């Protein structure tokens, strides 16, 4: 069977599974649509959160980032997991006790203000829409590489599948497809990693393999990797970083941002009890960790594999001839994600770090510049080919990448559509709408959101690459602090919350725009985005944590100088703190 046929089989098979689940889990009420009827088991919810959370960024990009940055990019590993500690202790159980359908609804009720709710809706929509574009674009890449279809065509197919299970089933359909998608993506991620770990270290568990002995050289794998890459002028893989403040703030921004992202928070509304919300936080992190503990192993091993592929006889010997390059290099050259230029016309591939410090050694070896550029996003997708694994593993990776992108997209689309139908339409425009009418409105807004996301995924605006900074910045600086203060402080009032949200958001956006361009329009940035220009060495990606502090400070200061919240609001805060009496999430 050809590779193309195998890929079709795996991707088609997984899509068929999602559609079957969609038909089985059709939503009959708004409660089904928004919170899956509130009867999801905590372990099931944990797996669904895992798929909801692990996006194309986690599945496709993260290992590549770590491979390129080594220790310094550990920030993603800690940042995207540490947020669950905050969620499980500071937000999820109390918001579950509150027992409503959406995040803005809590903010509107707690701060007795429709304006606060509206600000929350806007933050939610901007964060989620920017995030969903990345997922659709990621799905497009996976389609064009593995199914040899035009990426727009691929996106259309993906959109129809998401449409079926998200519009029909709402949260109920999404929950059970996410569980299936979690299984697909974790199997797809783990299998090639296990083979590669066996090949390099003889240890079948990749997470342990990266800290064990490299069979061929007899030295620890990471020592070997450090040696190989420093021989070629790169920094040590495990090298410490100088700018610790920025590393701390970036990790903190990712953690707070993770805890404040609405599409993750609403998943906690689907469990029957407050205690279950706590447990599902733990289970979610277990399911996430299965991938996140393997990712650094994939990163280090793939980096070593790449180097030894180019320098089969060691870094002192001549690199491989371009003619002899392995098949996977040829395949990825077609997509333009691997580029080769024979600068010194010796027919060989010189891959090294073109730095000042390495200049003299490169000259001595007759090298005239680095000749191979490898896009770091292909690392996970090319992994099975690099390790010479059979064709079905490649098919599995294709299905896994799509599962990661689609499950996250569906979660985000649900957060968007429920904000529109529940917070805007029912909350503001037509409060007397019937349950049936609201369900229809939810389905229509979901459908519109899918169309918009598909369009933006096929024509990604220039800022698509900056999405992470924006989505996490907004979630960290606006949503997380007001949610937390809404539970842990009785004193913070409506004016305080709104001023806090706006101050945190404005501060964060301005700092990002000054370096990245206003509304990300190229050329409109006031300062070049380089470390010398950053205030105290804080990168625009790390500013969300500072924005959160601004939000807290402004909210407290303003609340102190204005009237305290009315008695019934203080009662509400009291009530979310105690688990007893939590019915399933409802409208009333």
């Amino acid at each position: 069977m050809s590779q193309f046929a195998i890929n079709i089989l795996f991707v088609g098979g997984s899509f068929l599974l999602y559609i079957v689940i969609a038909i089985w889990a059709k939503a009959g009420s708004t409660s089904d649509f928004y919170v899956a009827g509130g009867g999801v088991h905590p372990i099931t919810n944990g797996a669904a959160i895992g798929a909801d959370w692990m996006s194309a960024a986690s599945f496709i990009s993260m290992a590549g980032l770590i491979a390129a940055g080594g220790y310094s990019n550990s920030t993603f590993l800690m940042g995207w997991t540490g947020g669950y500690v905050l969620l499980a202790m500071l937000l999820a159980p109390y918001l579950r006790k509150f027992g409503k359908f959406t995040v803005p609804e809590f903010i509107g009720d707690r701060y007795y203000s429709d304006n606060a709710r509206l600000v929350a809706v806007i933050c939610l929509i901007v964060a989620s829409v920017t995030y969903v574009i990345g997922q659709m674009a990621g799905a497009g890449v996976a389609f064009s590489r593995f199914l040899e279809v035009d990426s727009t065509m691929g996106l259309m197919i993906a959109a129809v599948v998401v449409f079926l299970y998200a519009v029909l089933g709402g949260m109920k359909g999404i929950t059970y497809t996410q569980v299936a998608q979690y299984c697909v993506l974790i199997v797809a991620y783990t299998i090639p990693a296990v083979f590669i770990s066996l090949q390099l270290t003889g240890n079948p568990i990749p997470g342990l393999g990266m800290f064990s002995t490299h069979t061929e050289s007899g030295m620890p794998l990471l020592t070997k990797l450090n040696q190989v890459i420093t021989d070629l002028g790169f920094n040590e893989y495990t090298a410490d970083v100088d700018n610790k403040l920025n590393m701390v703030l970036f990790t903190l921004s990712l953690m707070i941002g993770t805890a404040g992202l609405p599409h993750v928070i609403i998943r906690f509304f689907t469990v029957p009890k407050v205690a279950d919300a706590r447990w599902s936080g733990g289970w979610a992190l277990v399911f996430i960790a299965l991938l996140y503990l393997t990712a650094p192993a994939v990163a280090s091993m793939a980096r070593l594999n790449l180097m030894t592929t180019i320098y089969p006889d060691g870094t002192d010997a001549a690199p491989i001839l371009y003619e002899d390059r392995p098949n996977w290099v040829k395949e990825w050259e077609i997509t333009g994600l691997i580029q080769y230029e024979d600068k010194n016309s010796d027919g060989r591939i010189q891959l090294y770090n073109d730095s000042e410090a390495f200049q003299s050694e490169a000259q001595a070896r007759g090298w005239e510049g680095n000749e191979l550029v490898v896009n770091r996003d292909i690392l996970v997708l090319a992994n099975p080919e690099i390790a010479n694994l059979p064709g079905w593993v490649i098919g599995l990776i294709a299905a896994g990448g799509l599962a990661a992108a689609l499950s996250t997209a569906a979660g985000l689309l649900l957060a968007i559509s429920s904000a529109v139908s529940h917070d805007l339409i029912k909350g503001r425009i037509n409060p007397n709408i019937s349950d049936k009418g609201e369900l229809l409105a939810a389905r229509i807004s979901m459908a519109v959101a899918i169309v918009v996301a598909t369009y933006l995924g096929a024509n990604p605006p220039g800022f698509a690459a900056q999405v992470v900074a924006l989505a996490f910045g907004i979630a960290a600086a606006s949503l997380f602090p007001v949610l937390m203060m809404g539970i842990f402080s009785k004193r913070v009032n409506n004016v305080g919350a709104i001023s806090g949200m706006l101050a945190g958001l404005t501060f964060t956006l301005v700092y990002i725009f000054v370096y990245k361009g206003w509304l990300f329009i190229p050329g409109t940035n006031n300062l070049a985005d380089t470390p010398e220009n950053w205030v105290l060495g804080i990168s625009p990606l790390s500013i969300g944590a500072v924005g959160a502090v601004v939000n807290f400070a402004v909210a407290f200061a303003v609340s102190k100088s204005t009237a305290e919240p009315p008695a019934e609001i203080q009662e509400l805060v009291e009530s979310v703190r105690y688990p007893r009496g939590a019915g399933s999430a409802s409208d009333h």
Partner: protein
Amino acid sequence: MSGHSYDAENYWKANLRLIFGSLIVWALVSYGFAILLRPMLAGIPVGGTDLGFWFAQQGSILTFIVLIFHYAWRMNKIDEKFGVHEE
């Protein structure tokens, strides 16, 4: 549970204490061992590198899991002790 009662207050304090303790460990393994204190731990070798590197790439994640399950387990006990658990 319109609780200004003595017990409700103590329940909330017990929760805050547990959260505070958990977050100290949370910060210690990630911001501490993995980042700021890494040079101090450089002498402790782990599979070809040092303990700080391990905490940055795996150790902190494993600690986070233990923290959440510990919190869930302790809180359920505290819920029962103060009689605020769900039926």
